[in-house]
């Protein structure tokens, strides 16, 4: 007997337009479970719109999709209970301490009592924030804020984590550490969708998809994409594909 695993994300011909502007144009995409998927593309390529549709914040104009097996239109509430999301802005309460932020988001995702306290301390330890747990989030520097936002997003052990440009303006050494966190999570079985416009970063992903002007123009393993076009880096692949379209 073979166990057919349903994918973490499955989209078919998903489209969204705002007035005349087509933000997402017939995107078809399957992301298996336990995979780190990198969604690449310049600003305005439609990455954020796509993520917002996955979370049911925006309703697609056409096409269908499931996230963790739930329909993105009809079962959005269920998806929101399961998925974790880190926005570009690291949405933290600046006047709440690191610890209070974690407890708040824990409560939001239904954690309570000892389980919440345990999870809180576990995440504070794991991210190295324990010694700063009493500091207001607003006083933390960029790197620590990012870690805290990340911890808040995974407080409920989400089987799927969506990260929107988590490393914009982050120095390479911190980025290396951040990827270590992601690999740890993936090793525990989480599926991860991460958007980025750093092409060197995309090389970290198991699978990547390249978006340009709302369309998904290429997808596959980084090594396969590079091999197909006989190019040494994903950045070269991106530049070639993007200039080919102009």
């Amino acid at each position, binding site marked *: 007997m073979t166990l057919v695993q349903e994918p973490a994300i499955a989209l078919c011909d998903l489209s969204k337009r705002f007035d005349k502007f087509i933000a997402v144009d017939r995107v078809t995409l399957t992301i298996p479970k336990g995979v780190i998927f990198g969604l690449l*593309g*310049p*600003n*305005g390529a439609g990455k954020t719109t796509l993520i917002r549709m996955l979370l049911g914040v925006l309703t697609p104009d056409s096409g269908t999709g499931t996230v963790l097996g739930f329909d993105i239109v009809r079962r959005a509430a269920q998806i929101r209970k399961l998925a974790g999301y880190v926005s570009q802005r690291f949405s933290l309460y600046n006047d709440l301490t690191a610890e209070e932020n974690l407890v708040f988001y824990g409560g939001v995702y239904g954690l309570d009592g000892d389980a919440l306290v345990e999870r809180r301390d576990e995440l504070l330890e794991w991210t190295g924030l324990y010694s700063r747990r009493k500091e207001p989030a607003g006083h933390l*520097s*960029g*790197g*620590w804020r990012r*870690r805290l936002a990340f911890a808040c997003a995974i407080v409920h052990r989400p089987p799927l984590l969506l990260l929107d440009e988590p490393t*914009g*303006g*982050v*120095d*390479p*050494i*911190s980025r*290396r*550490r*951040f*990827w*270590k966190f992601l*690999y740890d999570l*993936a*090793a525990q079985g989480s599926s991860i969708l991460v958007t980025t*416009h*750093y*092409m*060197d970063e995309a*090389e*970290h*992903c*198991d699978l990547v998809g390249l978006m340009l002007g709302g369309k998904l123009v290429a997808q596959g*393993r*980084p*090594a396969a994409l590079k091999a197909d076009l006989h190019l040494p880096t994903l*950045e070269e692949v*991106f*530049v070639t594909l*993007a*200039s080919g379209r102009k």
Partner: protein
Amino acid sequence: MLQVTELTKSFGRLMALYEVSLQVARGELVGLVGPDGAGKTTLLRLLAGALEPTYGDIEVDVDRERIGYLSAHFSLYPDLTVWENVEFFAQIHGLHDQAARRRGKHLLEWVGLAEFRNRLAAQLSGGMKQKLSLACVLLHPTDLLLLDEPTTGVDPISRREFWEMINALVSEGTTVLLSTSYLEEAARCHRVAFLHQGKLLACDDPQRLIAQFPHTIMELRAPGVSRATLEEAARRFPSLVSAYAFGDVMRLSLSQALTDHQRQLAAYVTGVPGLEARPITPSLEDVFAWMLPAEGVGS
């Protein structure tokens, strides 16, 4: 051209920059790198004269008017059009004549924004905004250009175009100091200055920095094997200093290089079938990771 001696800046109890000394020759392109809060922006703002040093000296061999500074935040008016921004910038620098208009037009063409001259600045993409900012800074003749993270948040194509412009300026003799969070950009500079917690840890030619690196970098690869297994395999190397995963490979930093013989035995020693160990050239990233004090990462 530019001589900085024991430059120090503190904001209250926060030491932003501590006794940084640096010399830059005319026509040099210097990249500033370092983690968040390392002092890159403070250094650039001090050089631009936007901040007063707590102590230390800055000797600049050019007129104040011939220094151009581009801040990390988009500092143009989003509610003015591209051309109105250019005009305004020219006027506040006292440039009112026909020559200034011609230069403005020429610069807009050069940065590829001529066709967008009537568009509101707010409606430009990240890359276009940076190009407009650069055009505005270059309106008056500059000998020294200070750019704070000019390519952050800019897509790869625009970044390439931006670098072509910078290279053109440098070849015309402009001295450029820029901060960046992309190390492959830093590698293109004549020299790279590495800042950490306000201190200058190194400043040298990228190739020489890499040559200083005492360890060997080895890439482990095994088709169809999980990251956890690769990580486990990495720990079997006795001279292991550090390791990190990168996509489907594992990169190890080893204090002793492996012999060819040892490499061929890698699969056998680690017990991972098909494991390949291949030496690769260290990158600037490896060099800086090694220079950083262990606990400072990411803070």
